[in-house]
């Protein structure tokens, strides 16, 4: 791979036996597979597809990382994954500074980089298809189309990978619909998710999406009701800050009318 002809790696022929043994020991630095899978799941869950940008959310305080916006919140809130450990041990550094310190070349806008939105459903709830694997190319697990999975015999807290993937597909789909400006479709997906998974792994995420979707759909009263209910039961959760932001923005909208 190297084009540095005059600089042979010590690991190869360039080093002494001692040097080579030392360097060869780093070959064991493989990321454990289970950690990699968890990372990908986490990455899927926090993918930047927010319907409500941080700037629209007054009252946000980001304990994990100021300046990271909703992603920091999402990252610290995807409690279904054991992978996320930031809450217990705190951030490694100050990501605000980290972000600033990284030199990047600026592209020509976010839209170019986002996956092109799929054609929007006709606008009615009935027209919204239930999630299919084709709808969700980023999640390689098809949502079952038949009856709900018969795994409720034992309430096993450890989710198998298939279930997690399926559930994530719903969350992903709802988020996508919301991003596409179709909150009603998002709500339909969330309804279906709720029906299929009465004890969902992504309860908080689904609720936050629902509050966002309701607010966007103009169902302000229900958004507020659900948001306040969420806040009353999750007062200290990071997601609460986002819901609180939505509720506050609804309040300010109402007061200005």
């Amino acid at each position, binding site marked *: 791979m*190297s084009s*540095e002809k005059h*600089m042979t*790696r*010590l*690991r190869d022929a*360039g080093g*002494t*036996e*001692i*040097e080579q*043994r*030392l*360097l*060869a*020991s*780093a070959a064991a*630095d*493989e*990321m454990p597979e289970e*950690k*990699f899978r968890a*990372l*990908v799941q*986490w*990455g*899927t869950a*926090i*993918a*930047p*597809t927010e319907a409500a940008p941080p700037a629209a959310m007054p009252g946000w305080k980001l304990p994990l*990382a100021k300046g*990271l916006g909703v*992603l*920091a919140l999402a*990252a610290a809130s995807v409690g279904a994954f054991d*992978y*996320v*450990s*930031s809450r217990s*041990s705190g*951030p*490694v*550094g*100050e990501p605000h*500074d*980290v*972000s600033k310190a*990284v030199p*990047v*070349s*600026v*592209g020509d*806008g976010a839209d170019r*980089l*986002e*996956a092109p939105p799929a054609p929007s459903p006709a606008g009615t709830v009935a027209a919204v298809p239930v999630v299919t694997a084709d709808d969700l*190319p*980023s999640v390689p697990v098809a949502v079952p189309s038949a009856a709900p999975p018969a795994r409720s015999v034992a309430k096993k807290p450890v989710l198998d990978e298939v279930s997690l993937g399926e559930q994530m597909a719903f969350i*992903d789909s709802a988020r996508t619909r919301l991003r596409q400006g179709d909150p009603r479709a998002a709500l339909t997906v969330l309804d279906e998710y709720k029906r299929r998974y009465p004890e969902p792994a992504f309860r908080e995420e689904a609720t936050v999406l629902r509050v966002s979707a309701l607010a966007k759909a103009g169902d302000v009263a229900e958004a507020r009701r659900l948001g306040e209910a969420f806040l009353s039961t999750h007062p200290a959760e990071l997601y609460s800050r986002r819901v609180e932001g939505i509720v506050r923005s609804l309040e300010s909208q109402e007061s200005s009318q």
Partner: protein
Amino acid sequence: MRFRALVEAHGRFLWQSLRRLGVPEASLDDAIQQVFLVAAERLHEIQPGAEKAFLFRTALNVSAHARRRLARKPERPLEDDDVQALSDPAPTADDLLDRRYARRLLDEILDEMPDDLRVVFVLHEFEELSAPRIAEYVGIPVGTAASRLRRAREEFRQLAARKVKQT
């Protein structure tokens, strides 16, 4: 989804890089999340094709913060597992056949290298990058990358020779 693709394509690379840049194993999960959170935040700014370099530069900053935090907590002792090997304070080449022990010694050596040399050394030895690519990843001129690489190799060789008894 571009972000997920980034995680899938570069997660392993970042994990290894952070490890080799001195982030302790116990902090790797946090560190890699930090890197990807920054990437998610700035996804629209990352030029196609420059993703890996962007992630690595972010990892450099994250690892520097992690190491600074570590420096404030001075204990970085060798663990019980190493006691046997450490009964001889100057290990030999044969001791390095124990991979775990060799790995710990490698950590010590890398930790003693100046940061700027360590980075280019890691990229060259473990990622097999040439000086121009290292320059791109670290954001320095090619000439600087090449000269740092030469110095880094010398530094590494001296440290290894000092730590391991020649037999």
